[in-house]
C-alpha cells in the first residue's frame, strides 16, 4: 500500500468510520436522510430568494427575503455535519472521485453567490437598471450552482472508482 492508501485504510478503521458504515439505522441511513432534508432546504430556500430576484412575486419586499436566511444557514450546518460523517464512513470513495471535488466547488460557489445576492441585492435597495441586470445574473448563477451541486451529489453514487481502499467500484 502507498502511504496515501495506508492513511485512508487507517481512517476507514477508526471507530467513527466503522460505526457510520455499520448496521445501525441511525448511522448511514439516518445521516443520509438528514443530508437530503438539508439539501432540499438549502437549495430550495436559495431558489426561492433567486426566483424573487428574477422577478417572481415582485410585491415581496426584497429585504424581507433575508428573514429566510436562517433556514439556509441551519440546513447548511446540518449538511456540513452530516456530510463530514458520510465522508468519515467512506473517505477514500469520496476523495478518489473527481465528481466529489466538482460538488464541493459548486457548493462553495453557490454559497459565495448567495452571500453576494444578500449583500448586493437584498441589502441594497433601490437598485438602478445596471445593478438589476447584475442582480439577475447573480440569482441565475446561484440557481444553476445549486442544481449542479445536487446533480453532482446524486451522481457520486454512480461515478466512484473505489468503494474503500482495495475495493474497486463496479462501473
Amino acid at each position, binding site marked *: 500500500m502507498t502511504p496515501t492508501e495506508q492513511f485512508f485504510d487507517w481512517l476507514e478503521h477508526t471507530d467513527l468510520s466503522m460505526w457510520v458504515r455499520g448496521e445501525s*439505522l441511525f448511522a448511514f*441511513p439516518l445521516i*443520509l*436522510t438528514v443530508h*437530503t*432534508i438539508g*439539501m*432540499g*432546504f438549502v*437549495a*430550495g*430556500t*436559495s*431558489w*426561492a430568494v433567486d*426566483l*424573487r430576484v428574477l422577478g*417572481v*412575486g415582485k*410585491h*415581496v*419586499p426584497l*429585504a*424581507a*427575503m433575508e*428573514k*429566510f436566511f*436562517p*433556514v439556509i444557514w441551519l440546513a447548511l450546518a446540518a449538511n456540513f455535519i452530516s456530510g463530514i460523517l458520510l465522508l468519515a464512513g467512506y473517505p477514500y470513495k469520496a476523495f478518489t472521485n473527481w465528481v466529489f471535488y466538482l460538488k464541493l466547488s459548486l457548493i462553495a460557489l453557490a454559497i459565495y453567490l448567495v452571500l453576494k445576492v444578500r449583500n448586493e441585492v437584498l441589502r441594497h435597495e433601490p437598485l438602478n437598471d445596471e445593478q438589476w441586470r447584475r442582480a439577475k445574473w447573480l440569482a441565475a448563477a446561484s440557481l444553476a450552482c*445549486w*442544481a449542479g451541486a*445536487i*446533480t453532482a*451529489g*446524486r*451522481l457520486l*453514487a*454512480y461515478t466512484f472508482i473505489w468503494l474503500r481502499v482495495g475495493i474497486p467500484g463496479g462501473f
Partner: protein
Amino acid sequence: MPFWIEPDMPDAWERWVRATGLHEFVLHHSWMWPTLETLHYLGLSMLLGTVGVFDLRVLGLAKGIAPATLHKLIPFGIGGYCLNLLTGITFFSGFPEQYAYNPSFWWKAVFMAVAGVNVAFFYLSDEFRRVKLLGPHADAPWRAKFIAGTSLSAWVLVLICGRLLTFFRPPFFH
C-alpha cells in the same frame, strides 16, 4: 399472503407493469436511472423551497412578507411535485416489486395522502382566503398555522420515507 410480503413469482399486477412501454423505457438506458434520480432531487428541493417557505411564513417566520405575495412561488412547488410524481411513477415501473413490498414505500404513500388531504382542505375551506387577506407583519390564525405545520411535517416525512426506501428493500428482485 399479506399484500406487503413479496411472493416468489410476480403477481398479475406486477406482470402487467413489467409489460408496459414505460418499464422497457426506464431500463433500456444505463444513464436513465441516475438522471431520473437527479430530477427527483431537484423536484423535492423545488417543493421544499416554495411550499416549505410558504408554510414557514404562515407559522410566523419572515412575517414582513405578506403570505399572498409569497404564494406566487407555489407554481414552482407544483412543478416540482409533478416532476416527482412523473419520475416516481417511472421508478415504480422499473422495479415494481422493490416498491410494492417495501414498508417505507407504503409509509411514504400514507404521508403523501396526509399532505394531499391537508392541501385540499386548505384551499377548499375558508383558510386560504383568510391567509390571502393577511398583510405584512400579520399573524396567521391558529387553524392556518396547524395546516402549515401539518404540510411541512408531512412533506419532510415523505422525504424521510423516500430516502429510507433503499434500506427496507424486499428480499429479492423478480
